[in-house]
Structures are given as structure tokens and as C-alpha cells.
């Protein structure tokens, strides 16, 4: 696609970003900035592309450039917080989110990503407070309730967790991530039958490695060994210690000694590699 003027370039870049065509969006933002270099918000948009593409250094440079141009750009402060979250620099991350929220106390992204950072850091109560503020600001999303539910679950507030998970499912009944999270939570709370139904539905909607593993683990725990083994075998077991570990247990219950032994050897090698990992 060939864009004519700078305005068209910007529209196309935004459209590409929204469609998750990140490389294309990045290229278009760069083309725009070649022509109009002093737009802080566009540098921030380019930084967002870099962050989504996993290029943290480029994202950091573009964000800092944007903030030098406009120190009051909320979006750039939020991005900086997200970059620091990615590198687990929690204090710097929250300082950036706080600067964003000082400029706009109800900024949805500032609250939301600050909540995620708190969650990742283990500050669950603070995460809950931030998520509740996003809700109070009028943002009603399944994913948000899912994060809230996960935080409640880790805090041991199971009634609140249950309610938030149910609201998340209500808002996004076909979201595989939410179905998996709630299913796994129910299994961990000893409600395996209810949980496995949700995990199975998540897997049927989007068979991710995580949903495959959780479903197989649940089937194994329910003594449905053949189906559990078939699931894992279909997903491949390359360099995944946990899959080999589960297959050892499944094959053992099936009395398939040779297959179990093969997985033990694979698992042993896998664990040796893990134990040599640099601290």
C-alpha cells in the first residue's frame, strides 16, 4: 500500500497497529517521522510498536525522545512504565505510571498497566486497587475482570475471585484466556469437574500449549490416561520438561514402561539443562 501525504501515512500506521500488523505499522510511523520529526505523540506510537515487537531498547529511546519533546505526554509516561515493567524494574515502572496518573488521574492505560505491574511484582492488593479504579472510570472489559479475579485468587479472596471470574466470562464468553484462567482456578480449588469443562472449551477455541497442558493434566488427574497422552503427544514434547514429566506419570499409569523410560531420559536431560541455568 502506498500512502500519499503525511496524514495518510499516520492513518495507515494507526490502522496497521490496531490490526496487530506491527512491522508494517513501525515502518509507516518511521516514514511519517522522516517527514515530520517533531511529533512527540508519533514517537510514542513508534515506541509502542517497538515494545510490542519486543525491542525494548528502541522503545526506550523513542519514549525518551517523546518525553524530551513533551514532558506532559501521558502516553509516553505509561509506555516508559511498561518498558520498566518488562525489565522488572518495579520502582521505576511505578514512578512512571505515577507521573502519568498525576497528569491524568483517570487515564485508563496508566491505571491498567500500573495494575498489571503491581500484580507481576506481587503487590496484589495495590493491583486490585488499580483495577477497581479502571472499572470505576467506566471501562468494562472481560480481560480486566480476569486480571482482577486472578489478583483476588492469589490474595486468597475466593468469593471475590469467583465473582470477578464469572463477570469476566459473562463479558467475554469466548475468550480462551479467561476460560483457561477460571478453569485452572477452579481445578486448583478442588473443583476439577467444573474447571475441566472450561479448560476444554478454552482448548477447543484456541489450542495453546498452556491450555493443552492444563487439559492433559486434568485428564490425567481424572484417570483418563489415553486422552491425556494423546493430547500431549499431538502437541509435541520438544524441550518441555513439564510435558515429559506428565507423560512419565501417564505412561506409568498405563503400564507403558518403555515409553515412560524414554520420557524419563528426556526429562533427566531437560532437568540437567535447567539446573545449569545461570542465576
Amino acid at each position, binding site marked *: 500500500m502506498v500512502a500519499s501525504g503525511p496524514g495518510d501515512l499516520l492513518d495507515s500506521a494507526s490502522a496497521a497497529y490496531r490490526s496487530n500488523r506491527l512491522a508494517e505499522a513501525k515502518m509507516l510511523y518511521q516514514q511519517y517521522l522522516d517527514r515530520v520529526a517533531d511529533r512527540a505523540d508519533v514517537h510514542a506510537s513508534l515506541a509502542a510498536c517497538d515494545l510490542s515487537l519486543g525491542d525494548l531498547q528502541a522503545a526506550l529511546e523513542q519514549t525518551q525522545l517523546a518525553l524530551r519533546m513533551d514532558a506532559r505526554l501521558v502516553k509516553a509516561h505509561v509506555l516508559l512504565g511498561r518498558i520498566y515493567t518488562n525489565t522488572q524494574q518495579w*520502582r521505576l515502572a511505578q514512578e512512571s505510571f505515577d507521573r502519568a496518573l498525576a497528569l491524568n488521574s483517570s487515564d485508563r492505560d496508566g491505571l491498567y498497566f500500573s495494575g498489571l505491574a503491581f500484580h507481576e511484582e506481587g503487590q496484589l492488593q495495590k493491583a486490585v486497587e488499580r483495577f477497581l479504579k479502571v472499572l470505576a472510570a467506566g471501562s468494562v472489559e472481560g480481560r480486566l475482570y480476569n486480571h482482577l479475579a486472578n489478583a483476588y485468587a*492469589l490474595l486468597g479472596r475466593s468469593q471475590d475471585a469467583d465473582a470477578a471470574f464469572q463477570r469476566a466470562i459473562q463479558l467475554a464468553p469466548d475468550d480462551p484466556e479467561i476460560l483457561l484462567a477460571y478453569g485452572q482456578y477452579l481445578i486448583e480449588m478442588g473443583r476439577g469437574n467444573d474447571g475441566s469443562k472450561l479448560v476444554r472449551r478454552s482448548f477447543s477455541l484456541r489450542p495453546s500449549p498452556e491450555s493443552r497442558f492444563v487439559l492433559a493434566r486434568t485428564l490425567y488427574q481424572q484417570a483418563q490416561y489415553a486422552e491425556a497422552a494423546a493430547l500431549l503427544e499431538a502437541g509435541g514434547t520438544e524441550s518441555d520438561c513439564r510435558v515429559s*514429566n506428565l507423560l512419565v*506419570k501417564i505412561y506409568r499409569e498405563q503400564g507403558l514402561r518403555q515409553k*515412560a523410560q524414554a520420557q524419563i531420559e528426556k526429562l533427566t536431560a531437560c*532437568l540437567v539443562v535447567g*539446573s545449569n541455568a545461570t*542465576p
Partner: protein
Amino acid sequence: MTSLLLLGWLAGSSAHSAAPAGTFPIVFEDLAQQAGLSFVLNNGRTPEKHQVETMPGGVAVFDYDNDGLPDIYLTNGAEQPSLTKTRAAFQNRLYRNLGNWRFEDVTEKAGVGGRGYNFGVAAGDFDNDGNEDLFVTGVNGNILYRNRGDGRFEDVTKAAGLDGGGWSITAAWLDYDRDGRLDLFVVDYVRWDPDHEPYCGDQPAGLRTFCHPRFYAPLANHLYHNEGNGVFRDVSKQAGIADAKGKGMGIAVGDFDGDGWPDIFVANDTVPNFLFHNNRDGTFSEVALQTGVALNDDGTPVSSMGVEMRDVENTGHEDLVITDLAGERFSYFHNDGHGSFVERTYQSRLGGLSYRLSGWGLGVVDFDNDGWKDIFTANGDVQFNTESYSSGDSRQRSAVFRNDGHGGFDLALVGEAALHRGVAFGDFDGDGRVDAVVSALGGRVELLKNSSPSKNHWVSLRLFGTKSNRDAIGARVTVEAGGMRQTDHVTTSSGYAASSDRVVHFGIGTARVVDRLVIEWPSGIRQTVSNLACDRRYDIREPN
């Protein structure tokens, strides 16, 4: 002063806590103060957060003077960096049970104040002279105290050949070759050098934490054979123990495959656990991966700390319960009766209920005498400043997970929040309700009297080997009463760094008679006793 400590069900666990507050059938009262137990666990805390500081807290419950009343021994830390007991506050302590919930500090008289920085303790009569001896673990040196039988102990470590270095956390007495003499298994943790303690935490913010175990190299464990002349021989290599290097914290000895030979489980911190299967020829095979207990079903090596191997579900096979850190969930492995284990952490609800707890010591004991063994865990985070960087709690209450008899557990929290570590068990007043002693870093020891209101009946058994080792460690006991059949075994090894009374206790519910009691002695002798009246302790000697 007496304070009623068990106050209710875990708040917020709506999925499980069906009963209203105050109805939990297991109740403890802390009688430490009135009983004269003034011990404070002193870890010699430093700003450097040396790894040793978060680990001590060994407790032993054993009858050192043979008066029928279980006594209490508590290990202690030391000053740093010298790792020496420079003042009385670092002494290990022995408390003699005077009866009626009164104890007397007899440490000086008994000569068991310890030396160096101590962790675990294991009680066992290694010389078969009828007096319980003590093995105390430490960093850079362990201690073997021989009980002279006159109220005093003598340090025979060097003469026994047990004066090695390293960092040992815990130990267990067992007769692995069934020759009638107790051997010793010593669990080592990691290679640690106080002069090269890494900085962990957030240095710019001045937030220092204890480092993750991955910063320290693993060590092999040691098996010492009792030669019978007061000397032990290190047989780790030839027995196949030395090949497995781990980061051991807990040990449980049992017979998971029911072949009559003791097997050994070692709980490892953040690396796969070990299960040493006894090959009946003086050697062991490490079979944790094959039997499904090296890792949980998620394939994750968790921070395994305390462990117990007991028949939790009254199937006649010994299951495994393991404590670990908050966020990991205590593990429950059900023995399938065919030489393997199936994890039931979630199905039993133990996983969901323990998520926010960091458990160290534990016991699997029938506290309400209903015929089903419950779980007690001593909890407290590994870090002392957890609140400053997370939503977790450093100080935690101990917990009782009551066995509902249908494969599940219900939870109640016990006592005050503290940095609990070790716990050991015994019936201090002989009322048929098993009590507990819990240590806490920087805190006073807790003496928890079991005041459960249950009217259920019980029997307890103190076995004396003649051909077998005198403590009868390794004997398997089966009790049939009221239509229930239960099994347990004699051991002093208990949870984390602890040693419990060797008396075997069974709750028998509403039954008033034990219809049949079967003892399978380590010597191979099988003894059957019928029609035992309830609510009393029996001393049983091994028949010739």
C-alpha cells in the same frame, strides 16, 4: 496464662469452609509461658542476610529420662560471623517434663547446650542401651550426644566418626539393613560461604533479601552405617546415596512399596526431590522420577521443606505430604499401592488452602482421634520483610488441615502469626490427645496443648525392640477397631529438622476396643494382639 488459640476457619476460603466459625473440632492452647518454656530462637540476625539465618528451628520431643513423660529439646543459632555460641541466648535447650504442664530447664546439667550454628535434631537410641540419644545438625559440624542414662549426655561426635563439615539441615535414624542397630541419614543443604554471600534484593532501595537457592551449589547427603561399637561408617558412596546431589531440607523414612525395608524421601529446595528405594542389599536406587514424586504434576521443582510419609487415607500404603513456600501449594502425593504416587494436591483441597502459606515443619497426626490423620504445619515466610515488596506475609499462623475422611481437608489457623519453623509432637500429659511444640525465629517457643473437645477414643503404643533396634524404629503397626483399619510406623523423623516422640498414636473414633493389633517388627517378627481396651498407652516388647 492460658490463651485459646484456634479461633476459626480460614477467612475467604468460601469454596471449602462450609462450617461456621468456632465449630472446628481441633483446638490448641499455648501453655508455654505457664509451663516454664522461655526459649527464644536466636538466629544471630545480620544485615547481610546470611542464608543460615532463615533456616534454624529444630525441635525434638523425646523421653530422655525414661519417666514416661516426653521432654523437649530445642536447637538454636549462633553469633555471626564466628558461628559460635558466644552467649547463653544461643544455647540449645533441654526441658524436662515434670508433669502437669510444668517443665524444667536441665540444659546445663544434661550438657546439651550445643556448639556452632545448629539446625535439626534427631532422637534415637543408637547404642541400644535403653536411653534416647541425640544427633544435632549444624553448619561446619554436627553433634552426636550419647545419653548416659544418668541425666547427662556426652559428646561422642568425634569418636563416632561423625565430625564432618558441610551444612546439614536435618537427619533421621533408621535401620536400613535391619541388623538391629540404628543407622543415620544426614540431609545436607547447599555449599555456603559467609564471606561470599551474594547481594539479593533491590540494592538501590536498600531492600536486601535472602537469596534464592539457585545462588548456591547443591550437596550430596550422607548415610552412616552403625558398626555397633559406637562408631559409624560413611557408606554414602557404596549405598548409592552420594551420587544424588540436591538441596535437602526435609527427610521422611517409610516403606512406600511395602516390602518391609525402609525407604528414604528427601525434600529438596527448588530442585527435584529424591526417593531412595531400599534394594535390600545395603544399596539404594533413586526412583523419584519413576514413582512420580520428584516433581509435581506441573513439572515444577518447588521449595520442598518439610515432609511426612504416612498412611493418610487408611489404604495401608504410605502417602507423602510436603510443605513449601507461599505461591507453590503444599503437595500431597497419594500412594497408589503399586509402588508409585499420584498427586492429589488440588483434589484434596490442600493446594487451594495452602496457597498463601509458607510451611516448614509438619506432622501427620490424628488430632481429634476420629481415625483419620490430620496435618499440622508450622508456617512463616523465608523472608522477614515480605510485606515491603509483596502482598505476602512474613509472619504467619500455623495451620491444621483436618482430614474429612473422604480424601479432602478443611483448614483452621492456629495461634499467633510468627516466623514459625520446626514442630514436633507428643502427648505431654497422657490424655490421649497429641500436643505440639513449635519454634519461631526471634520468638518464644509455643507449647500447644491439644484441647480438642472430641470424646473419641484412642490407643498409643510404645514399642521396645529386642532383636530389632531397641526403639523399634521401622516397625509397622496395623490397628483394626470399629470397622476401620489404620496403619502407621515407628519413626522419630518428623517434618522439618524435627524429631517427634516415637510413640505410635491411633484415634479409633467411637470404638472402645481395638479388635486386632498387628506389629511387623524390623526383625521380621510378626506379632498379633487382640482385644485391647481403649484410652491408654501400651508398652509392648518384641517377642523372642
